[in-house]
């Protein structure tokens, strides 16, 4: 007589435990993958809450003039301008400097809405472009500066 194998005696995991383990493993693996992907994406700098600082660059409004070696800037918008990159053109090519390096009078906290600034910056030969620099918040590094693109800049022909 053949002995019948009793299937109920086979050892193995209970289906409930298996399901719980599976779900736990999936959640843990998902979390690891999520954190890994986040570290690969570009750091997001925000201004005015959750808005990306790149969008704030498009809201900047200011006017500027260069007369008798004096640079004057007036912030006519509602976005505080932390600093400027000053791009000058000469025969040798282009050079870009921070406005704080050109003039010690630049306000430390930047140019608030409605405020104006003027200082002697010396002689400029040909073309001058002011590119705004904003300050925003980043989750990783706290306060962080962001240089707007040149399309947000202001060109002054000397």
């Amino acid at each position: 007589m053949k002995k019948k194998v009793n299937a109920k005696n086979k050892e193995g995991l209970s289906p409930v435990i298996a399901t719980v383990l599976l779900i736990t493993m999936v959640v843990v693996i998902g979390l690891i993958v999520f954190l890994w992907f986040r570290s690969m994406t570009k750091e997001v700098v925000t201004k005015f809450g959750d808005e990306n600082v790149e969008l704030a660059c498009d809201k900047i409004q200011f006017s500027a003039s260069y007369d008798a070696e004096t640079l004057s800037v007036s912030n006519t918008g509602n976005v505080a301008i932390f600093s400027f990159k000053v791009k000058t053109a000469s025969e040798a090519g282009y050079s870009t400097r921070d406005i704080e390096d050109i003039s010690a009078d630049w306000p430390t906290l930047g140019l608030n809405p409605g405020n104006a600034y003027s200082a002697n910056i010396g002689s400029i030969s040909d073309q001058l472009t002011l590119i705004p620099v904003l300050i925003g918040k980043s989750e990783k590094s706290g306060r962080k500066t962001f240089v707007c693109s040149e399309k947000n800049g202001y060109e002054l022909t000397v």
Partner: protein
Amino acid sequence: MMKNKKGVSEMIGYILLISFAVVISAVVYTWLKSYVPQDALECPEDVSLMLKNYSCNSAENTLTLNIKNNGRFSVGGIFINVRNDSAQKLATKDISKYVHNSTGTYLGLGTLKFKDAFSNEDNSLDPNEEISLKFNLNNTGFGQIYSIDLNPIRWQEEDKKMQTVNCGNAKVTEQLKDCFAG
């Protein structure tokens, strides 16, 4: 015998696929959320101020401005800059902090708020109303003033908070004749 071939169970495969899809969409959402544009702080279009007249008292070194709201919306204050260099085009000298405190309050950062004895509202200068502001320019060393820029300010509720809004599009520039010309 097909049933004996080893492979990933279909159930596990589905769970893994769905999990990866959820994780990737969470990453993309977190990144894209910052690109949703928020409404810009803006003044209503018909905000307007005019400089009705002015007087420069050289003996006392005071400047008095009579400003009228000729727009359709109330105004709460101004950013005010003067130009004291004939070679420059822009007015960059802030005189808001020199205001006499009977008609205006200096709030810092170049902000001058109008005072109205009959109104507690933030935007106290109603349409067609006038206000006279006096500035004491002693010891400022400004010399002659060639022009003045008046930039209206309104206080508006945005995101359930009162915000100072610069009405840059309504800026007024007036040339001043012989003001502290010496």
